[in-house]
């Protein structure tokens, strides 16, 4: 077996293995350690002629034996040993059990009692199988810091009794929302880092899309099992809504990610949506997003992610900036404002209104936001306002607003872009002022 084949099995089998072991062992750290041991052994022992026919079952048996060894060497988890010795000789669990184990792992890693940084790190480590080093690199944090973060999180999970279980039906929809928020945070970290020289760290985008697709499959599998009640209760509606929103998020990330290669130019500078080379957008990702969004819509539970995906989908299908269907975009933002009101949504809506109607109408809406003071440190508020002022020819005010945006940003590519705009304005000012 080649090295890359091992890597492929690793990616597919890792979350299943960690999930099953977490239930077997009742401890996330021991599960992770045993899974890691089993993979190390696989990498050393599997060759082109010695590939097990069922790599998953092989890994599980090996990992359980490793866990038994670990427990025998130490003193902890001794009470688990008898059950584990029995398990060591049994095959992989039923598919339904595997689905619930994996869901339990995801919901556990994204548990609301952990802080967001911990949830992100745990999800990438335990579910995606990224190494602590890789996660540290992706988040521009030293490996030691990331390791500490993971240790602290696992300590809390153990001491506080954070359950690794599929939530009760009444909590499922809320808990799916929690998971989606973490997946989207991972994606946006990959798509726009607010710090550092690299605007794009695409691996995180891929991990986020993969996580969403896994969650969709698992939720479908979970829902496919016969529930206690035959008719469609409110709770089942919640479960379907959660699935629809997961599909919406997948579509949103696909549309956004289709523009990955065009967000920066060859010298690493930021290119805004209106100036991007649309012929370079990834058609496959756009098609993926469209079919996923269409399936989500058939479930009949529109939510914020689906609406954002619909907006991103309009951009993805538009020939250029000017012939974009801005009226529909404003309408979608209206709905989004009703379902999930936030100042950021209002800001984006204002920018769309400026395109659908007049820059001055959009500017008036943004000025209302400025007065509310809620987004005072939000760089896109000042950059958006600056852009409209620039288009209205109010250059001095635009320059001031760009400067404010610069104060709020720490991303090199964005800073370069904002400075460039100020330079452009000052050049165009010379003739107009005389």
């Amino acid at each position, binding site marked *: 077996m080649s090295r890359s084949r091992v890597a492929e099995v690793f990616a597919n089998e890792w979350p299943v293995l960690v999930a099953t072991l977490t239930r077997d062992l009742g401890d996330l750290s021991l599960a992770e350690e045993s899974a890691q041991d089993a993979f190390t052994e696989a990498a050393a022992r599997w060759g082109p002629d010695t590939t097990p026919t069922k790599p998953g079952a092989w890994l599980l048996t090996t990992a359980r034996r490793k866990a038994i060894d670990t427990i025998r060497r130490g003193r902890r988890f001794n009470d688990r040993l008898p059950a584990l010795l029995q398990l060591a000789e049994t095959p992989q669990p039923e598919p339904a059990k595997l689905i619930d184990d994996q869901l339990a792992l995801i919901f556990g890693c994204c*548990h609301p*009692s952990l802080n967001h940084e911990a949830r992100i790190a745990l999800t990438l480590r335990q579910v995606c199988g990224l190494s602590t080093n890789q996660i540290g690199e992706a988040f521009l944090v030293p490996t030691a810091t990331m390791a500490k973060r993971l240790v602290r999180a696992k300590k809390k999970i153990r*001491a*506080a*009794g*954070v*359950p690794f*279980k599929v*939530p009760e039906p009444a*909590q499922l929809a809320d808990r799916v929302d929690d998971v989606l928020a973490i997946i989207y945070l991972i994606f946006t970290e990959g798509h726009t880092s607010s710090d550092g020289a690299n605007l794009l760290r695409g691996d995180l985008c891929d991990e986020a899309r993969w996580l969403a697709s896994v969650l969709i499959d698992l939720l479908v599998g979970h829902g496919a099992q016969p529930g206690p009640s035959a008719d469609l209760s409110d709770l089942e509606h919640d479960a379907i809504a959660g699935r629809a929103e997961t599909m919406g998020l997948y579509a949103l990330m696909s549309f956004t990610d289709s523009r990955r290669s065009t967000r920066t130019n060859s010298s690493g500078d930021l290119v805004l949506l209106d100036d991007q080379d649309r012929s370079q957008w990834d058609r496959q990702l756009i098609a993926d997003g469209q079919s996923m969004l269409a399936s989500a819509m058939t479930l009949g539970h529109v939510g914020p992610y689906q609406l954002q995906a619909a907006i991103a989908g309009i951009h993805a299908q538009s020939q250029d900036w000017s012939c974009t269907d801005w009226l529909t975009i404003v309408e979608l933002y209206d709905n989004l404002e009703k379902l999930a009101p936030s100042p950021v949504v209002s800001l984006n809506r204002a920018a769309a209104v400026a395109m659908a109607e007049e820059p001055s109408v959009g500017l008036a809406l943004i000025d209302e936001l400025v007065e509310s003071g809620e987004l005072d440190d939000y760089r896109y508020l000042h950059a958006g306002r600056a852009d409209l002022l620039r288009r209205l020819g109010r250059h001095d005010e635009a320059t001031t607003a760009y400067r404010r945006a610069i104060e709020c940003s720490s991303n090199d590519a964005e800073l370069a872009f904002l400075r460039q705009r100020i330079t452009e304005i000052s050049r165009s000012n010379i003739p107009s002022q005389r």
Partner: protein
Amino acid sequence: MRYMLLLYSAENAGPEQGSPEQAAEMKEWFAYTEAMRTAGAFLAGDPLHGIETATTITAHDGNVISTDGPFAETKEILGGYYMVDVENLDQATEWAEKCPIARYGSVEVRPIMEMG
């Protein structure tokens, strides 16, 4: 697992002493505690007298100092506690959510360190 639910609120938060709202809330507290007992989760629980009754003792380096008042000046005051025995953190936080004080104060959920 055993958990402490530590009930905090600002000194003047919640219904006023002797008001009908306070009488209504008292009933809620009784019902809440009763529900905890029925569910088999209740181990212990009591309200505490106010911080004006507190005495704080330190004995650093054998030097005993007694202070009239709480350990630290804080906005949120520890006003009572419950000790519950439940399966996991989700069940503990579910009880915390239902606690009347959660509406105007806060409930800190802390796992008890088992020393056995």
